């Protein structure tokens, strides 16, 4: 069971204070390193805003990559392993990074904004509320759609904690947060915090309570055992105290991520990577069994390879992005997708591929990461590459996107939003995808669509069309053009997303929810139809693709080049999830997933292509048959 620290303050650097931003960044890196060394397996960067949310508040927190951490602390891996062994945490569990927003609520109108329709909230992994008066607290406990209620205990509380409110909040699945760094920093605040927090703990008995540091600097972080002892001094039993930093956090994350990635908390559509070979020994459903419910996408840092390569681990996170329905809905064409656009797109996409062929030495998409030599960092999800050095490409890039129809009954539509960096989207992602597809012997079709980021002004076309086209094409085109774009890739985090996803639905920015609903229904309907058609054959690429394409119109009639080159990413969150989604039978989501026809099945056997999974211990590369080849 891992330990989590879900409150590491993040202050966004304003352009005015450059010096502050570098200091803040180095502080953040140090805190993350210290947390890793102390044995934590997951952290969340917390951004606090107050008042009305604007579009500027969308998540733009850059996730740190392994290489940037190793730059500061080159001997990180031995220390991490040492502490993990002592704590009983498996050495190879990935270190996860999440993003979190804390909204300070004063008035009723601000409270109204905390509902599930708010698009800004959706860009963060975890949403927390900090009520500042009684009304706000009552509203937060009873109605607000948040994950955490975080109360500042360090001063006299401006409102009363009432037992029925607290019970109501617990019933709804909201967690209360107690931060401990103020205990360490200031002696006078200690009194207030202890007396206030004790009340909360007495009422809740530790149920639905999480502990976190809100550490302003690295000296205020404490190890998991020490934090549990703090809680036990406040009145909890040691068992509950330990649960407050491990089990409770984990279930909080599961719920929060489920809320984020599953449509209406139930359906999740993913792209299936096309590189999966049908004759692989690993059964297709094996991936579903390894689904990681708390993966943080690109934020997962695999520590296995740290010892092997200090500077550039070629971990590729094979995460598959879930379709973000909000963003998709707008882009959904009203007249349906048209196949002709698809086909024209595909032809164009071939041209760059031929050039690329020569570059490909191995079919491994991981090559990308090797090539770039830069960082093995995980791709930064939301970012516009504030640190170009840390361009993450690799992890995501190198993931082979392969789609395979393992289960004719399932169609995975994967869509991912990838952010595109401002200009240079020569993203090879498409080519990557093609490459991957070419890998697959079985020419499984991956329906891929990429979600476009409207913000970036990239052509929205990038979308799925390319993917579809590419996917359909066969695959034996040789290695990916991705290889080509090393430089490009290095600039693009988006690349990672796209490459990973074999199929993605293009999703437009969020529009009204009503439209959204309709669109989603359409997709569902489509899926059903397709499903029936594809039941017979396992590799039903073309037909399903065509079906899908019929329904999806390709926007990009114009630039095939664009198609190939650029993939726009949406600023919002869609994570790429590793296609390892396992079908957990008891998981309700999974059940629903099963029912949905899938266009492409994410292939956890991206390993085939040698990509390293970023996810979970179950995905340990070492244990898998197909080792990444570097």
């Amino acid at each position, binding site marked *: 069971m891992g330990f989590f620290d879900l409150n590491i303050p993040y202050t966004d650097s304003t352009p005015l204070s450059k010096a502050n931003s570098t200091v803040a960044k180095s502080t953040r890196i*140090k805190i993350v390193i*210290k947390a890793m060394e*102390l044995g934590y397996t997951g952290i969340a960067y917390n951004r606090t805003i107050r008042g009305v949310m604007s579009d500027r508040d969308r998540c733009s927190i850059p996730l740190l990559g392994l290489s940037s951490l190793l730059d*500061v*602390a*080159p*001997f990180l891996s*031995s*220390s991490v392993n*040492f*502490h993990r062994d*002592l704590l009983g945490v498996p050495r190879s569990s990935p270190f996860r990074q999440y993003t979190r927003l804390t909204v300070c609520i004063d008035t009723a109108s601000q409270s109204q904004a905390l509902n599930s329709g708010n698009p800004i909230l959706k860009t963060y992994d975890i949403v927390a509320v900090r009520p500042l008066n009684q009304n706000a607290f009552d509203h937060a406990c009873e109605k607000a759609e948040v994950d955490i209620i975080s109360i500042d205990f360090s001063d006299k509380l401006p409102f009363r904690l009432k037992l029925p409110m607290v019970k109501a909040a617990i019933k709804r699945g909201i967690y209360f947060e107690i931060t401990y760094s103020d*205990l*360490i920093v200031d*002696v006078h605040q*200690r009194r207030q915090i202890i007396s206030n927090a004790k009340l909360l703990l007495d009422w809740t008995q530790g149920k639905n309570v999480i502990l976190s540091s809100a550490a302003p*600097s*690295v*000296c205020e*972080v*404490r*190890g998991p*055992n*020490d934090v549990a*002892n*703090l809680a*036990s*001094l406040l009145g909890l039993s040691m068992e509950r105290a330990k649960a407050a930093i491990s089990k409770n956090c984990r279930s909080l994350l599961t719920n929060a991520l489920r809320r984020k990635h599953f449509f209406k908390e139930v359906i999740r559509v993913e792209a299936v990577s096309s590189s999966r070979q049908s004759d692989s020994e690993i059964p297709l459903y094996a991936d579903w069994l390894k689904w990681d419910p708390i993966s943080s996408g690109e934020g997962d840092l695999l520590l296995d390879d740290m010892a092997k390569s200090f500077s550039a681990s070629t971990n590729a996170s094979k995460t598959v992005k879930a379709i973000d329905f909000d963003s998709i809905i707008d882009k959904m064409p009203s007249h349906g997708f048209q196949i002709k656009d698809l086909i024209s797109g595909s032809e164009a996409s071939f041209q760059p591929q031929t050039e690329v062929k020569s570059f490909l030495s191995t079919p491994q998409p991981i090559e990308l990461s090797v090539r770039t030599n830069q960082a093995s960092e995980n791709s930064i999800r939301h970012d516009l590459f504030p640190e170009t050095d840390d361009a993450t490409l690799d992890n995501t890039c190198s993931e082979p996107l392969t789609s395979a129809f393992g289960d004719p009954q399932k169609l995975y539509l994967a869509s991912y939003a990838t952010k595109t960096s401002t200009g240079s989207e020569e993203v090879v992602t498409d080519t990557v995808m093609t490459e991957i597809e070419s890998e697959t012997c079985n020419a499984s079709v991956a329906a891929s669509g990429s979600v476009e980021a409207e913000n970036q002004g990239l052509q929205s076309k990038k979308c799925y069309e390319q993917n579809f086209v590419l996917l359909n094409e066969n695959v034996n085109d040789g290695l990916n053009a991705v290889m080509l774009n090393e430089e490009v890739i290095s600039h693009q985090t988006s690349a990672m997303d796209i490459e990973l996803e074999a199929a993605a639905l293009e999703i437009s920015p969020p529009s009204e929810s009503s439209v959204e609903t309709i669109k989603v229904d359409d997709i569902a309907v489509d899926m059903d139809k397709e499903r029936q058609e594809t039941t017979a054959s396992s590799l039903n690429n073309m037909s399903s693709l065509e079906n899908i394409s019929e329904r999806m119109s390709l926007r990009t009639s114009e630039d095939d080049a664009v198609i190939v080159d650029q993939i726009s990413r949406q600023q919002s969150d869609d994570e790429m999830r590793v296609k390892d989604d396992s079908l957990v039978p008891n998981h309700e989501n999974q059940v629903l997933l099963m029912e949905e026809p899938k266009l492409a099945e994410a292939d956890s056997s991206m390993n085939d292509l040698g990509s390293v999974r970023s996810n979970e211990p179950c995905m340990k590369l070492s244990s898998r048959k197909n080792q990444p080849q570097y």
Partner: protein
Amino acid sequence: MVGFKNRYMVMEVLLDPNKEMSGDDSIVITQFNISKAIKDSILVNFGECGLASSLRSFQVKYVNSITKLCIIRASRDEYKKIWYSISMVRSIGNCLVLFNLLDLSGSIKACKTAALKCDELKFEQYKLMVGARLSVDVIRHMQNCIEKIKILEH
């Protein structure tokens, strides 16, 4: 039968997290200065009474200044308070520190086993960090410390 029970905590002292990762430390930790820092912390957090009742069995039994490991003994009744006070220690002298518990055991024997293991692993890490600058003195010092652990008694 022994009616009086103790708890032995193996802790590591992480010095000055803000400094560069080099082999040089700004302060040498000794039994004395750790003990003083902890006692001050108990006094602040638990007052005179707390300090007095903890002081009975409180002792810093072993300190290794190279690997920053220490073994602290406390009575079973008071060990949580002492542990809490140790977590609250922010600085020793002028140097910012951070204590992290590695192991907690009820007998000196278990504590010795754990401490030996941790010491060796930490020394490996130290050697990695220091690299070529490892001197013979340091190695000899380590040998002495290992011997000291082995002859620890309650």
